[in-house]
């Protein structure tokens, strides 16, 4: 009898004791860090940048992890290059590690390694990103082909007044599909000045980006001539433009009035990798989903993009007159006259951009 009781008690203890443990093992003990790569090769720009990070596999709240400056950082001695290939020809462009400051946010305190090089991609070439860790031999790669810039049909003439007030024939941004581009974005930027009660005058701009337009079958690439595909239209009616004003321009205290300078539009094209990333890569809430990546031995993506634009677009006077009257834009305090007509403003140029980066501008 005693033996039975002992056996039964032992069995119960065997079952119940492990059940007392109530901790959750969030990470597998053998989990290794992974390389996280983000980069876009812009064929209409000469500065190419790649962001390199590591995953964190520490079992701690993210608020603690993000306060550690090196928790998400890769080895600073990484050798990063972009290889330009055309058949057997290969040119190697080393990328230089640059420490950028960060905008406020969750990762504000983490080290911000950006690798960059001056190279304008040629659409006849293939490009390969090579990252080597000299300390342990890790090799991370990705290969892409550049995207040709979209062919802008309209608007093309700067410092001309365009008709935003004609509801029957609204302002229209037209462009043609180009080879290798599977996604397009249209960016609409409003340039204006703000004059404050204390006399300060600040030049500002606010941008609105339309929803991505996906293209399933872009025209075939030809090294000889530019194959154009279907025309894509992006209408901007008067009411739509009011709503854009309302959405992107914030309220400011002490503001006396605003005065419009001009509009600027830019059309961006992205390759299949960029499209896949936009469509499927950022939905990370589903734990069964495969995260899109085209990085070998890492995660993230390396894609190709290009853009074309037109600045100095001016609205018609009817539009300007109605801006302070429309209920949703009246709060913005726009005057009915333009700040100045003429080419006084321009989009941020490549040179302006480079001047923000001391190392690059020095090299230049």
């Amino acid at each position, binding site marked *: 009898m005693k033996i039975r009781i002992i056996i039964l008690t032992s069995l119960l203890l065997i079952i119940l004791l492990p059940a007392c443990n109530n901790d959750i093992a969030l990470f597998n003990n053998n989990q290794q860090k992974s390389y996280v790569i983000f980069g876009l090769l812009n064929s209409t720009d000469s500065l190419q940048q790649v962001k390199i990070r590591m995953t964190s596999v520490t079992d701690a709240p*993210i608020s603690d992890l993000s306060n550690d400056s090196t928790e998400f950082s890769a080895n600073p001695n990484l050798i990063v290059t972009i290889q330009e290939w055309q058949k057997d020809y290969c040119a190697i462009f080393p990328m230089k590690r640059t420490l950028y400051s960060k905008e406020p946010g*969750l*990762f504000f305190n983490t080290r911000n390694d950006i690798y960059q090089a001056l190279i304008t991609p040629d659409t006849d070439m293939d490009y390969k990103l090579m990252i080597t860790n000299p300390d342990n031999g890790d090799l991370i790669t990705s290969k892409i082909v550049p995207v040709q810039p979209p062919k802008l049909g309209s608007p093309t003439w700067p410092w001309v007044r365009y008709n935003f007030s004609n509801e029957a024939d609204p302002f229209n941004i037209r462009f043609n599909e180009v080879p290798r581009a599977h996604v397009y974005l249209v960016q609409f930027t409003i340039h204006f000045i703000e004059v404050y009660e204390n006399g300060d005058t600040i030049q500002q701009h606010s941008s609105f980006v339309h929803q991505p337009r996906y293209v399933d079958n872009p025209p075939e690439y030809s090294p000889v001539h530019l194959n154009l595909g279907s025309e894509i239209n992006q209408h901007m009616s008067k009411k739509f433009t009011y709503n854009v004003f309302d959405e992107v321009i914030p309220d400011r205290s002490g503001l006396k009035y605003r005065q419009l300078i001009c509009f600027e539009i830019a059309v*961006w094209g992205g390759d299949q990798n960029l499209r896949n990333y936009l469509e499927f890569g950022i939905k990370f809430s589903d734990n*069964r989903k495969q995260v899109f990546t085209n990085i070998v031995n890492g995660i993230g993506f390396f894609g190709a993009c290009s853009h074309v634009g037109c600045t100095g677009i001016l609205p018609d006077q009817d539009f300007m007159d109605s801006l302070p009257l429309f209920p949703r834009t009246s709060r913005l305090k726009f005057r009915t006259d333009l700040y100045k007509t003429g080419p006084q403003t321009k989009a941020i140029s490549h040179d302006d951009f480079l001047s923000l980066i001391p190392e690059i501008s020095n090299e230049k």
Partner: protein
Amino acid sequence: MKSNWKKYFILILLLGFRCHLVECQTIQMDTWGEVKGYVYEQGTGFVVPLAGVAIEGTKQGGMANEYGFFLIGKIPVGSHILVVRCIGYEEYRQNISIGPGQLENVVIRLTKRSVELKEAVVSAERRRWERMTPVATQRLTVESMSRTPSLGVQSDLAQVLQTLPGVIFSGDRGGQLYVRGGAPIDNKVLLDGMTVINPFHSIGFMSVFDTEVLQSVDVYSAAYGAQFGGRVSSIMDLRTRPGNRSTMKGIASQSNIGYGLLLEGPLKKMTDSTLGSISYIFSTKGSMLRSTAPVLYPWLDSLGLPYRYNDYYGKVSFMERNGNLFDVFGLHYTDDVSYKTAVRSSWSTTGGGMGFVISPTQSNTLFVNRLAMSRYSADFDDPSTTPKSTIYDNLDMSIKGIHMLDRLEVTWAAEFSAIHTQYSYINYDQRHLTDDLYTSDAIILFQAKILWPRWILEPGLHLRVYSAIFNLMPEPRIKARYNISKNLSLNFAAGLYSQNLTATTAEQDVVSVFQGFNTGVETVQDYFRGRRIYKPVQQAWHAVAGLSWFDQHNLKLSVETYVKDFYRLINNNPHQIYTYLGYDPNFPEYLSSPYIYETGWSYGIDFLLDYSETNYSVWAAYSYAYVTREDEFMKYVPHFDRRHNLNLIGNYRFGKDNVWTVKGRFQIGSGFPFTQNAGFYEEFKNKDGTFWMDPYGDGNLAILYGPINGGRLPAYHRLDLSLNRIWRFPQGRQLELSASVLNVYNRQNVFYFDRVTQTRVNQLPIMPSLGAVLKF
């Protein structure tokens, strides 16, 4: 395919003709006659199933079926005495006169005997056990359900189902039931023949059904017979009872969890002289948790108990003087959850139907006909994702014939279901996507039950045509029982099953307060592992074998081992990373099609001990199970793969006239699988929403996941207790007070874990409750 159609059609005709031939031959015999009829309870008019009916002085006899219907054939011409016996009732005797080839119709009303109710229940259960193949089947009645302690006053089906062997419940807060490896969508719930698409409220321990309205609940956890179909895992068949046909009765209940009211009575009274009657039953119940929980359970976490539900059910039953029945019913169930995080989910089911149980005077066949319609609509709004909504409309029609011979019972049925599903959501790209589909199923089925002294054999064939794919699915089913001894039987069941309904909820969602529905999926892969799939229908086969013991001392023991081969399932495609443009041999389809095929296995062994005495009862159910799923990409265990699950229920009555009852339930289950982290990282940040990478930008936090469900959560265990006291008054009036405590030792079972903040939210903590039930 055409030749197949012809073959099946001819087979159906032959079988039907054969049944008709048997019927005619029996009636036309010159020296024999037959008697058929119904057995009802005197006063209430409730059906008395499994009553023994015999012709005194002969070997002719039979047993009333679930509808109280019986048929005795081959009775010699002349005067006889019909004797009806059923435990718990007075013996009934009636003189009958049988003419040559005559079919005598009788209606029998048994008077209830003043014996212990429990004894009668157990004995009836034992009689039923003797006549059935006790494999993968559990019958629940109001009495058996009352053995489980409940939060609130009255026991609820949702709380009882969790204790059955092979049933896994994923949690008190929005949890779902998984039956022997099947997902909730693979389980069909029928209420008087009507499909109830969502039978459980968002708070996991409440179903939409009022237990007091239910006559019986049959849970077929695997390898169910040919009378059911359309699901690849399990069936729950609920039947409601009619209202009392002679007296007005009521039940009012109130607790801090919710309230309930049931009213029933005659619209046209059944008297001693006439059977023809009309009765009604109406039931409503609702929750009070949203208002009482913050006051009574201040220790609840920030999630609280923001649940609200209201259920209404009504039925009017007509009984003809020859015992035939006709009923009309309607229902309306609503549910609403509103979390502080602004996540809001609400759904409602509205439906109604009618049913006939008829045996025409000159026919020895019992016809059970049903027509029911319902609409389920649900909305889900979560600020972090996108609004979603779904509709499921259903029309069920069936004509069933039951033909009873001496040792043979043949059931045939023709059924038709029309289904409309709608699923609407706005995706991340702000595009409004909808899925609006109409489909229908036509079904013809045959089932026979052959009773030999040592064997019971139940072969069946379920023929289902899915209009969406216009394909006939012949599904053979078999059940067999071999009596090793009077108390011990060896049982076996197997069958093939199909289903075309899919849920848009991915199986990995542990907490699912919303699921959309879809039928006739057209955007599923054309090829699966290199093989072309011509029938995009989910399919599975089941096999169960077991031993069942039921002795004269009310001890019930069973051990069952089962296997379910889900060899074709259809699920949302979590791997989709490309736009679907139709089949392209050069493109990986499983990375682009919105739906994908999966396969899966579920197998295990279940043990059950069920013992009842006059003043106590014990229930112990242990399950050991494996569940796997495999798609084109990976093999994994679904989140409900609980390896060990043990439920212990004890019930003890004491005091003078057993007015006190103490009930307890302890459950322990091994941890559910979950997906571990493989890393946190900073996302890409673009500049002003363009393709320009912002080198200064602070990217969003992203999570890299490890192998799906590669980790295990801690074990789940909980103890619930309740103490009830009954005061009995004249004329059957009764007051019952109940005090119960859920999660007595306040075990912190995991509900969910926020990976980012490492915040843990647990299942329900210790929760005492008080309530009262007045029966009048």
